């Protein structure tokens, strides 16, 4: 795997360089002390794997990931355990190494990256049926990524829609019709004129309402048969 290191600390770069040289699956091609230089490089060259430090001055590792359109696989390297939760938000991150990194732990992370890439190769064969797992919404001139799996429900609010996820609510200027077209049918269902729900998030159903998280959502009579059809009823 062609790999690069991005870390502002010379010592950290030297250590990853050494650990890489002991791993026969890796071909370390470049090393960068700041994210900006790395972005320039990545815009013109393709790599399979990035060893990325999170805590860097001015432009952090997460900032860098947000600028890359199709990021390669990433192994985070950090002195902070606190970022682990944020790391789960990125599909490209395959592992999280806390410094100081041992050879054994390093090799394990590389193995994960290798497996990850093999799995992806198999999955990416039928390109015309590529699965999209997320949606980008425009919020204050920023395109924010929301994974379908994290969405609990969508509620119409006049000229806006409210997207409620596990961790956050997003108010977006759009219509129910538009978002309905963007959502995968197997996960989402319109149960009411003003509500689309993620059917995997249903806790229970009572007559004409469903419970998702602590939200009670009305189910209109005309949409109820379709909802019932989706359930694996005993």
């Amino acid at each position: 795997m062609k790999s690069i290191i991005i870390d502002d600390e010379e010592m950290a770069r030297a250590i990853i360089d050494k650990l890489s040289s002991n791993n026969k699956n890796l071909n370390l091609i470049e090393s960068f002390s700041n994210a900006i230089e790395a972005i320039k490089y990545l815009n013109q060259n393709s790599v399979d794997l990035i060893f990325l430090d999170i805590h860097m001055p001015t432009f952090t590792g997460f900032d860098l990931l947000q600028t890359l359109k199709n990021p390669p696989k990433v192994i985070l390297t950090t002195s902070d355990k606190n970022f682990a939760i944020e790391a789960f938000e990125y599909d490209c991150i395959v592992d999280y190494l806390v410094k100081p990194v041992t050879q054994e732990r390093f090799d394990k992370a590389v193995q994960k990256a290798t497996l990850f890439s093999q799995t992806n190769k198999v999955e990416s064969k039928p390109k015309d049926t590529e699965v999209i797992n997320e949606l980008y919404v425009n919020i204050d001139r920023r395109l924010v990524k929301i994974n379908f799996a994290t969405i609990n429900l969508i509620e119409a609010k006049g000229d806006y829609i409210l997207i409620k996820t596990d961790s956050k609510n997003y108010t977006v200027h759009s219509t129910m019709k538009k978002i309905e077209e963007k959502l995968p049918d197997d996960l989402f269902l319109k149960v009411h004129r003003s509500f689309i729900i993620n059917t995997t998030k249903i806790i229970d159903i009572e007559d004409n309402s469903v419970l998702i998280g602590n939200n009670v959502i009305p189910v209109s009579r005309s949409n109820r048969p379709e909802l019932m059809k989706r359930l694996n009823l005993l």
Partner: protein
Amino acid sequence: MIYEKPNLNYLKEISGGDLEFEEKLLIIVKKELPEEINSYKKFLNENNFKQAAELVHKIKHKISILGLEKSYQVAIDYEEELKQDNLNLKLEFEEILNSMICFIKMV
């Protein structure tokens, strides 16, 4: 107060006997650590605790490289406390710095 001595166990473990690599790493530590300590003290004198915390963050990695596992935890806590303008761990942290400086002068 923590009593543990800096050592080269981690460096030797990852070097696999590559003396050139060990030397390279020690040169970096010898060059950077005094500079980082000076900057840390400067920021502290200016009551710029956020920047001082940044320096503790940088030094933290060197603490772990020199095998100081318990001291590493002190540095983690001190970095967080400095961000809250809290200097409770200052003396303990600076003792660690002293022992590191003595050590790198010997190796």
